[in-house]
């Protein structure tokens, strides 16, 4: 992925910045221009909102058949996390024994290396999730 394509999503990827609709109060991640509930009446009112970085595992999978760039870390866990803002986010689970992953497990977001661009050497960072304790 190009450097710019990753860089322009930095606020979302580094700091879990989503948006809150100024019309109905619903929170969305990643940022979007229109509230899917309010549409036109949300225009110009989708304000930056930092998600709570804690939540629980809503569902998960252990990936055995991995994309080439993740072959060195397989098997690894991915999950959908229900944050304390009641927003779902998908990401990798780290610092956890795979057998111990379960639905309902408390987690927190951590900043980790996500990928490395082989040509430019640029390292991309973003959120992953680790057990809370």
């Amino acid at each position, binding site marked *: 992925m190009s450097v710019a394509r990753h860089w322009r999503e930095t606020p979302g990827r580094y700091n879990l910045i989503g948006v809150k609709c100024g019309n109905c109060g619903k929170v969305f991640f990643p940022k979007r221009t229109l509230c899917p509930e309010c549409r036109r009446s949300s225009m110009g009112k989708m304000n930056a909102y930092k998600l709570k970085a804690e939540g629980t595992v809503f*569902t998960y999978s252990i990936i055995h058949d991995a994309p*080439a760039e993740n072959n060195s870390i397989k098997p690894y866990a*991915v999950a959908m996390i229900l944050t304390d803002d009641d927003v779902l986010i998908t990401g990798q689970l780290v610092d956890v024994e795979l057998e111990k992953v379960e639905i309902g497990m408390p987690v927190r977001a951590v900043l980790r290396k996500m990928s490395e661009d082989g040509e430019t050497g640029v390292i991309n960072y973003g959120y992953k999730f680790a057990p809370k304790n």
Partner: protein
Amino acid sequence: MRDVAIIGIGTTKFGEIWDASFRDLGIEAGLKAMHDANLTGSEVDGMFIGNMSSGRFINQHHIGALIADYAGMASRNVPATRIEAAGASGGIAFRQAVMAVASGMNDIVIVGGAEKMTDVTDEATNSILDSATDQQWEATMGVTFASLNAMIARRCIHEKIVTREEMASMAVNSHAHGALNPDAQFRKAIDLNTVLKASMVADPLGMFDCAPISDGASAVVLCPLDMAKKYTDRPVKVASSAQASDTLALFQRKNITTFDATVAAAKQAYSLAKIEAKDIAVAEVHDHFTIEGILALQDLGLFKRGEAGKAVMDGQVMVGGKVAVNTSGGLKARGHPIGATGVAQIVEITKQLRGDADKRQVPNAKYGLAQNVGGTGSAVVVSIMEAI
């Protein structure tokens, strides 16, 4: 709006077809469908082609022009339009063709679906499949297409909607039917243990919970119902075709144990056809992963929520059961050349309603349904065909 009929069908064998190129496959399916409809070619006035990713699989875009050209339609300047909606490309191409004929804009339309997947490595194929998810907020996180379906499966098991064994029985059902379909990629029955003990892809889904990588093409010819008898004495009526959208990313939904787009498309399709779910005798559903097959049975209203898995386990979706599902072998055993799948489903339903399905024939089927899904339920098309 005019009623629309299917007057011709054709398909290649599905599988790893080393000696055939993308254009070879597309033309073979198209010519078979034209032959079946007793057309010379000069009658055709429109073409639609379902294809997900020829650009990445064979580095060829602009396949509307390619297929029109090699089908001999370019010399007659017949318009050809390519439709992309990931796994639903074929089914949505079919719906576009139905609308073109229903509207009166076209009379004789050929709709094809094709994908040539085995010219690239399996790793490249998986990366292309992952592009049906939200590339920026799912695939970038190391989440694969299979793992998204695995997370749906895990949640369904957690909510006691289905058991692991019931889910696996969906693959047993598809293989049992695939064994009877000479065009299927896998023509071999399997047992539950084969599915349960297969190597893991994305836990809890193993190798036998997932459709294979396939080459193949399918085609159907449509015309107004009142013209159909001119070309064939066995037309099948398109009773309805409905399409619905949902969020691109799975995590944007609160409920991941149902595909709302299937529910919405099915509701409209039943209403337009003036029938109910219980009237369906035979259905082709999008079992790219076993869990998707289970969800389809519930979301289409063929079984109650929480009861589909048991029904599959009990053989109620075999030929001879309550409703025969995936008599072609489904995506799992017939194969899943992505863009071809939605059209291959229509081919199978047409065979069933004509009484041409041989050893897998559902007796006296009046209504047949095809459900085709793009991504994790982000685009769904449901079409209902009627024997006349």
